[in-house]
């Protein structure tokens, strides 16, 4: 039964690394896309849209990610929607990411000084032109560091997908542990992998923070 060598363990874990990466990518790209739509909707859609978006965000944010995973995995089939572990995990992670990024981006837009709006509007510019040409470029600079920083959270959060049976590195780790009973080795490897993924991201975030801080 216990036929895994140390090398075999490493190899098996690494073979699931692409799934962790894929899930992170889906979560981040999908979440960013949804967040982009929600942010625009909240900013351009008037007061009701803004409040509506706030309600959605705080609902998602006050629910543990684990519950979102369960809800997607066990809840969607109740509506006759077939879900694979990948789909359920992706949906939950996209919601999780979108909620955070919408909040971050909306506050970045609000953080642009009101005088910028006033200067642009007073020259006769259209609301949407002001948003695109004047406010957005400044908001992007404000939003880049927290956005990149959140990528770290997303990568770590993919480990929760193991709970719905999605075979990424954490899941393969628990399975391997059940077979080999070498938890220290296995989880040290997995922990090191997460760190290896996240360290460059953290460094990039810090670099961008310095780079885009142009206002002194």
């Amino acid at each position, binding site marked *: 039964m216990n036929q895994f060598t140390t090398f075999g363990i490493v190899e098996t874990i690494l073979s699931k690394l692409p799934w962790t990466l894929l899930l992170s990518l889906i979560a981040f790209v999908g979440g960013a896309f949804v967040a982009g739509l929600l942010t625009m909707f909240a900013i351009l859609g008037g007061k009701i849209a803004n409040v509506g978006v706030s309600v959605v965000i705080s609902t998602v944010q006050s629910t543990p990610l684990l519950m979102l995973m369960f809800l997607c995995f066990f809840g969607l089939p109740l509506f006759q929607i077939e879900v694979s572990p990948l789909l359920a995990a992706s949906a939950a992670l996209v919601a999780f990411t979108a909620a955070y990024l919408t909040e971050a981006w909306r506050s970045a837009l609000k953080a642009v000084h009101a005088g910028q709006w*006033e200067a642009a509007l*007073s020259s006769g*510019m259209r*609301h949407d032109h002001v948003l695109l040409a*004047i406010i957005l470029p*400044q908001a992007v600079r404000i939003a880049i560091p927290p956005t990149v920083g959140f990528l770290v959270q997303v990568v770590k959060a993919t480990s929760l997908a193991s709970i719905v049976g999605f075979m990424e590195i954490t899941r393969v780790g628990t399975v391997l542990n059940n077979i080999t009973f070498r938890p220290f080795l296995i989880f040290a490897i997995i922990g090191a992998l997460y760190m290896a993924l996240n360290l460059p991201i953290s460094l990039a975030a810090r670099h961008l923070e310095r780079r885009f801080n*142009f206002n*002194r």
Partner: protein
Amino acid sequence: MSHNAPAIEFRKVCKWFGDFQALAGVDLKIGKGERVVICGPSGSGKSTMVRCINQLEQHQKGDILLNGATVTGNSAHVRSIRRRVGMVFQQFNLYPHMTALQNCVIAQRLVARRQRHEAEDIARAYLERVKIADKADRYPHQLSGGQQQRVAIARALCMQSEAILFDEPTSALDPEMIREVLDVMVGLAQDGLTMVCVTHEMGFARQVADAVVFMDHGRIVEVAAPAEFFKEQKTQRARDFLAQILH
């Protein structure tokens, strides 16, 4: 747009922020090419009054006319009014992600729909006019406060509007930079630009203003030619105010 209508006219304008009345029946006529200086204690409604002209604030009662036509209306109408009235702010409000030149070009492109080369030529001409053409490619954070404010004035001039509103354009500046901005403004005044200027620079008022407006508690308390106003104030409040700022 009657031919001899005042450039800007306030008719019994009232403005509330919630329960607080910031403007309490303001009446004023500003003729074409006139320079009006507005002064008064903090909170008296000077900024609010000026900002109602281009509808950065909306008044609830009365009317404001630009060349005989009301400034209020739907957003397209308000934009057309704003296009005809420039504004210079206390905090400059230059776009920090754009160079001085780009700051002067953007609204020309998006609002006046000028071609890029035409807009840039105009921008350079006005940057020259405010004596900062050599810094056209600098970003705002690379400029001193006085230089930034001169760029902001050039930006407003580029729209070639009928009047320019100034809201305390020198109040955020270090003392040694006030002069360079005032010099530019004196030059504009001498060229016959219609100017509405909130300022406590009484030297400027004396030098170029056709009328000094003194405000208190949302009302215009006195309007007079500067020579008259500085010689003898009709109200105690104006006397107290002048005594305070001239000490």
